[in-house]
């Protein structure tokens, strides 16, 4: 794993990754500020009607939004660049004529491509929780089953809910890695996961896939809903984890083979 520290440094040195951290840190506060001054509430979103009565509602509202639009974009922004960036900068020859094998380089990059999006997610989760509490205080949260959750339990469930987004986020990272390795284009690597995420959302909305929609990589982002209720259910969580794993394996095996076998020109 000697490649990992520098892969992380390279990522953090890039302005768009730094900008993503700043957005994840500050955007929840900005949303809280807007909600505090506007008269209406986001009632169409789960927990939207409670954002001014419990500080634990806002992070769940933001989680719903991020699951739809932000997480695939974050995955692409980081993981989509990690491999194709070497093509863009012409650095593969320098990188692959070192003492490390291509397999080692792939592993180091992959781990970096997964760690940074997870760190971004964690940043967004904590700043959302902080923004929610700043907006509405540590009041109890009304769960999806109608029960009241005390502040401590609500905080734990909020963080666990955000944590359930990690497996599908990693699935999208794997998708970004595949697109990045195969296309050798940062545009495809960065925008591809977001576009494919959008297509998956549309397919889910249309309902034409029936139960097959469970195999879509966007479906596991909804699994947290089973947690924030008195009678919690975990089936979608395990199913989502398996689906995410399936996508990750299906993307990473060919991506690794392509990198190991490709001619670097």
């Amino acid at each position: 794993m000697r490649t990992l520290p520098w892969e992380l440094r390279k990522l953090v040195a890039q302005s768009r990754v730094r900008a993503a951290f700043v957005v994840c840190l500050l955007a929840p506060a900005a949303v809280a500020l807007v909600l505090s001054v506007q008269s209406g509430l986001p009632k169409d979103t789960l927990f939207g009607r409670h954002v001014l009565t419990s500080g634990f509602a806002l992070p769940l509202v933001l989680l719903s939004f991020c699951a739809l639009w932000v997480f695939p974009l974050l995955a692409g922004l980081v993981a989509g660049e990690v491999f194709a960036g070497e093509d863009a900068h012409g650095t593969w020859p320098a990188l692959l004529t070192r003492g490390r094998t291509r397999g080692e380089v792939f592993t180091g990059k992959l781990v970096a491509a997964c760690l940074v999006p997870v760190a971004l997610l964690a940043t967004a989760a904590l700043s959302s929780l902080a923004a929610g509490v700043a907006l509405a205080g540590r009041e109890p949260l009304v769960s999806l089953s109608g029960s009241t959750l005390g502040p401590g339990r609500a905080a734990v469930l909020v963080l666990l809910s955000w944590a359930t987004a990690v497996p599908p986020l990693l699935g999208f990272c794997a998708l970004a890695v595949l697109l990045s390795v195969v296309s050798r284009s940062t545009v495809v690597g960065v925008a591809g996961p977001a576009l494919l995420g959008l297509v998956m959302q549309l397919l889910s909305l249309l309902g034409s896939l029936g139960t097959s929609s469970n195999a879509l990589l966007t479906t596991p982002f909804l699994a947290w809903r089973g947690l924030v209720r008195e009678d919690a259910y975990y089936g979608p969580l395990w199913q989502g984890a398996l689906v995410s794993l399936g996508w990750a394996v299906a993307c990473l095996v060919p991506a690794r083979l392509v990198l190991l076998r490709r001619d670097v020109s």
Partner: protein
Amino acid sequence: MASLASVEAVTARGLRKQYGEQVALDGVDLTVRRGTVHGLLGPNGAGKTTLLRVLLGLVRPDAGSVEVAGTVGGFVETPGAYPYLTGRQNLAHLAALDDEPGDVEEVLQRVGLADRADTRVRGWSLGMRQRLGIAAGLIRRPDVLVLDEPANGLDPVGALALRSLVHELAHDGLTVLLCSHDLHEVDALADDVTVLVAGRVVWGGTTTELRGRPGASLLSTSDDALAQRLAGELDVQPHQSGSLLVRATTAELDGYVLELARRGVAVRELVREGLPLEQAFLELAT
């Protein structure tokens, strides 16, 4: 790639590489002696860069084998760099991937980048990037250094400094495989030369041997008709300029001029067409 215990730093046998219908390498054999500067010459599309990529392990040949004694470093075409990192960080990154890397500061000094090493590569000139590419090769402390058009983008002073650096490296025992379009550069630096044309080696040997190949000279004498009769087996033909066109090795030309003088034919002008190496290359490559 396996190690060699002999005097050869690089041995390639029967290398073949095809991209679709295009044959880039067609049974290339190459031997590079340890501690020498080996020039690789050829017109565009001759397969030079593909050969270097194979040697660096970046491209897998369809057939043939390559053996390199020790480690190989260097760059092909324009060396890449991370624009958002400084020059020092670029080198430190690459050094971190090697088991026994060289000292970053020392290498930066050696390629003349120490003063600018803490600025981001984004604003660097092509010449500075070339030097960073050389530094990236050297930081590996390679036994064989591959340089593809290293003087690209360098000003005359930079090119001169590069030549002196390559001389220094070769003097230190490093084997340098130098690919260049600049025949003056190869002439000045290389001990051995391999000429590639259309994916095949058309000539290989020392630069002295290459210079020894017949070259063209324009000769003007006091009696061109007699001079032509005295040519014997030498190729001496009337030229459109009014002079005689002589195709001969340097040694043959020396003998011919002495013979002319002995027979009372005065040599008024003798002009070699370009560098001997240039002549030989053009003959081989066209």
